[in-house]
């Protein structure tokens, strides 16, 4: 039961290098191991002058005693290694969200993932960053859910960016733009693809013209289509009419994804030459028809200029009905909506009426889609005005004919107050529960107090006993989209519990969980105010 002194020949076990300790004779460990392999019946126990003497001097017992001595000596004499420290993270740029807000984030990460975007948004708005200890879990979330990445990047701060360099799963963060990014020429010239993307984004936010010139100067030399697409994405920041030239170049790109992105960006520039050409294409294919209708002529496969302007591939074979429909859909979606009012000499509502009268569902749906894509409030109002009071009827008929009703994109274009008030007028106590649920799904948050009360009233109404799933679903929407301070104004007992019931009181627990979520969100808002 003895050990050598701690300083005697520190050696990592199994390390063939002798330690830094005082010089000694040959390490007898290897001799002991080879004797043990052969067996003490056939080989004598080797002498071990570097070890203290053992009571037994021969046979298996002596070998095992000496092996134990050598083992303990190795453990006690462990030699430290040398290794290069990582280069430290830059100083913190923003204060860390602390105390209750940090504990809240922990709870959100543990079991309320749905509220993570809201927490991140509130923290970023308050100028706070994620507590360092939660960064790994947060970066993991971003790795699995790309929709979270911008919010993660904004809240992770400089520490998060530094940390992302240590795990390949987190490299996405290196490409995400964050508000405090500053353009760095070295990183732009020599960085990874992600870093270059991030630097270009930073420059576009500060000086869009210089960003465009920089991208244009390297554009011909960018071999990989994916890199071209990622860098072109940065043009979305600070987009203006002067960018049209570069985007037109990208519209001729070999990569379909690059062309598609260029078209999306060009769609946001209704005052450029590309937009004018699209207007001409519409005028060439649509004209007023008899009895206040619209007549559309199909797009042919030989219209090379039109196909190019719409980033569509030239067809290799015969063009069928499906392709023609796709061409027309793309043209209507991308051409500035004002071409229609000019062409038909009427206002947006007039245009939509004429299209309805023409009995051309494809054209109608494409126009509605265009309103959402081009985010045009006046047109959205016109389209929804046609539905006013009949929204649920329309949904039913759309569902019957299996056509998508683009209610959500239309509502999204309107200011929150306006869309909520419209939604409120679209259902009543007798409206079918399934229609209420689909309608509310289409109304983006935040909801107004008035809409929230209306929804709570409807939860107290009839019909839910045959639609438990709908009840739960509406509760979830209310929990997610209602401003949390309304929790005190909503009924504290489950509306229409008697009617709901359900297996194990489904309705009751859904409503309670709604109140619980609102309270949770209310605390979250207070902590990050």
């Amino acid at each position: 039961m003895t050990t050598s002194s701690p300083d005697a020949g520190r050696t990592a076990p199994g390390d063939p290098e002798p330690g830094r300790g005082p010089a000694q004779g040959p390490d007898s460990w290897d001799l002991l191991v080879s004797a043990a392999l052969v067996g003490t019946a056939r080989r004598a126990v080797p002498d071990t002058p570097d070890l203290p003497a053992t009571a037994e001097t021969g046979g298996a017992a002596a070998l095992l005693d000496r092996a134990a001595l050598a083992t303990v000596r190795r453990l006690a004499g462990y030699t430290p290694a040398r290794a290069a420290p990582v280069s430290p993270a830059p100083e913190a740029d923003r204060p860390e969200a602390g105390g209750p807000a940090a504990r809240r984030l922990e709870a959100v990460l543990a079991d309320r993932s749905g509220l993570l975007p809201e927490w991140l948004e509130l923290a970023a708005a308050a100028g706070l960053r994620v507590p360092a200890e939660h960064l790994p879990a947060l970066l993991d979330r971003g790795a699995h859910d790309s929709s979270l990445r911008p919010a993660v990047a904004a809240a992770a701060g400089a520490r998060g960016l530094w940390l992302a360099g240590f795990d390949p799963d987190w490299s996405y963060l290196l490409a995400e733009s964050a508000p405090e990014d500053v353009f760095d020429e070295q990183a732009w010239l020599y960085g990874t693809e992600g870093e270059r993307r991030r630097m270009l984004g930073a420059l576009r936010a500060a000086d869009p013209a210089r960003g465009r010139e920089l991208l244009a100067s390297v554009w011909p030399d960018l071999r990989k289509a994916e890199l071209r697409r990622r860098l072109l994405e940065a043009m979305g920041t600070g987009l203006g009419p002067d960018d049209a030239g570069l985007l037109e170049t990208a519209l001729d790109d070999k990569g379909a994804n690059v062309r598609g992105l260029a078209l999306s960006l060009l769609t946001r520039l209704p005052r450029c030459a590309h937009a004018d050409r699209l207007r001409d294409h519409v005028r060439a294919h649509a004209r007023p028809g008899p009895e206040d209708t619209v007549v559309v002529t199909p797009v042919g496969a030989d219209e090379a200029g039109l196909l190019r302007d719409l980033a569509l591939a030239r067809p290799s074979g015969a063009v069928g009905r499906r392709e023609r429909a796709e061409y027309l859909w793309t043209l209507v979606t991308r051409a500035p909506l004002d071409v229609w009012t000019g062409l038909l000499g009427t206002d947006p509502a007039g245009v939509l009426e004429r299209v309805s009268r023409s009995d051309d569902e494809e054209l109608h749906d494409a126009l509605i889609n265009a309103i959402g894509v081009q985010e045009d409030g006046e047109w959205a109002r016109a389209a929804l005005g046609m539905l006013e009071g009949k929204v649920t009827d329309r949904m039913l008929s759309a569902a019957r004919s299996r056509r998508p009703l683009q209610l959500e994109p239309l509502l999204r274009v309107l200011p929150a107050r306006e869309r909520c008030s419209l939604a409120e007028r679209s259902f009543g106590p007798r409206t079918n529960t399934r229609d209420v649920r689909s309608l509310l799904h289409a109304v983006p948050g935040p909801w107004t107090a008035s809409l929230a009360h209306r929804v709570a009233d409807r939860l107290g109404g009839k019909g839910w006993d045959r639609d438990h799933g709908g009840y739960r679903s509406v509760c979830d929407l209310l929990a997610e989209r209602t401003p949390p301070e309304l929790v005190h104004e909503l009924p504290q007992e489950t509306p229409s519990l008697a009617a709901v019931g359900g297996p194990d009181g489904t309705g009751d627990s859904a409503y309670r969980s709604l109140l619980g979520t609102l309270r949770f969100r209310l605390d979250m808002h207070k902590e990050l105010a």
Partner: protein
Amino acid sequence: MARRGDNPVYPLRGVLGRLVLSVSPRSVLVVSDRWSIDDVWAVAPDAASRKAAVKVAKAASWPQRGAVAAPAGGASAVWGECQGSGSKPYLAAVHLDGGTGPAYKCSCPSRKIPCKHILGLLALWAQGEVGDREDKPSWVGSWLDGRAARQARAADPAGAAPADPAKAAATLRAREEAVDAGLAELRLWLHDQVDAGLAEVPKMGYDHWDRMAKRLTDAKARGVSGLVSRLPAVARQENWPERVLEHLGMVHLLIDGYRAGDALGERTRGAVRSRVGITLKAEEVRTAGERVADVWAVLGRRTVPGAEDDMTGLRVWLRGTETGRTALALSFGRAEQAPTTPYRLGTAVEAELSFYPDGHRVVPDAGAERPGTVPRGTAVAAALDSYAAVLAEDPWRDTWPLVLAGVVPARDDRWYLADSAGDALPLATAAPRRLLAVTGGHPATVAAEWNPHEGLTPIAVWDRTGKAIPL
């Protein structure tokens, strides 16, 4: 250690028969003042329980509830009847001033301790929704009375002693004789292995080792039995000839140590007996073990697989701020139930702890919680010296806590922690993501378990503000 049931879990004698008693010293709140809501969540076994508890914490769900006033003011117990989905309410109660931390009882079938009903009830109480009541249902009264009686027995050493000391001594003697015989047989067996040579070891089937391991279990030497059954795994490692010889040598040393008996120092003897498998009950240690009063700083915790497949072990390392003494609090739980501990990272506990004979392991008794400070750490060289000193008393110890001051993560072929002198110890883990996140690569105090074969496993770090963060 969470203990289940003076009553079996599922007898079919109605609700009262299903009452499950559990004692969990996880919280060290021995004071009976009303808890804050944070105190309540601190005793939750996991986040899911907390979430479930929020739903239960509604006054409307607890038509009957009350607090039992303590003689010295505050509350002695809180109880309530929770109207769940079933026809019978769940009966939940918490004993607050029991002396070893709160004890919980609930008639629900959940295996979590405390369950969501207990947590929900405490949350209501913390929010002032449970008032003092003179009367209490009989199930509360009988439970509290039973606990009081058990505590009285435990407090009286004479009461805790076995009914017949002579019989107990005879049992121990018989056990030691069995162990003696088992170890003698093992010693011969080891010699046979080494005489024959170890070259064939990797080719031997499990039977070869399991037969010996089983004989040792029969001889009541479970600890050594475990060491023998680990041999096949050792023989699969890289450098297996060295690893197997090390292992056999250390087992041989353990046998000779056991046979040396009283010739050994007290701590070494304690370490040998526990490693052989002669265990002591916590009560015996409380009665006869060395007691050290100190303010024990919590260095960190690590969950490890238990000796049996469905067991989970929890190691919590403490360090006395006055004595500098290192203490190890072990607790175990069945797989579906996390082991609990009264010690929370970031705090220190003022308590007189009872040490097992090995001089390190303690009975995890609760004490008065104090705010923690950053523990005093050392450079790598001094930390290795402390481990060497421990090996001198207990050469089999392969896990020891190091508190390293001013270390930074370093990377070479693998990850390391390096001190300001440039001395580095390898990490047993992959990229230390949380440690990197918290320190940003700047020097910090880190507590880690050291295993010279595997490397460091960081268990806690103290950030720039002095806050302790578990790793």
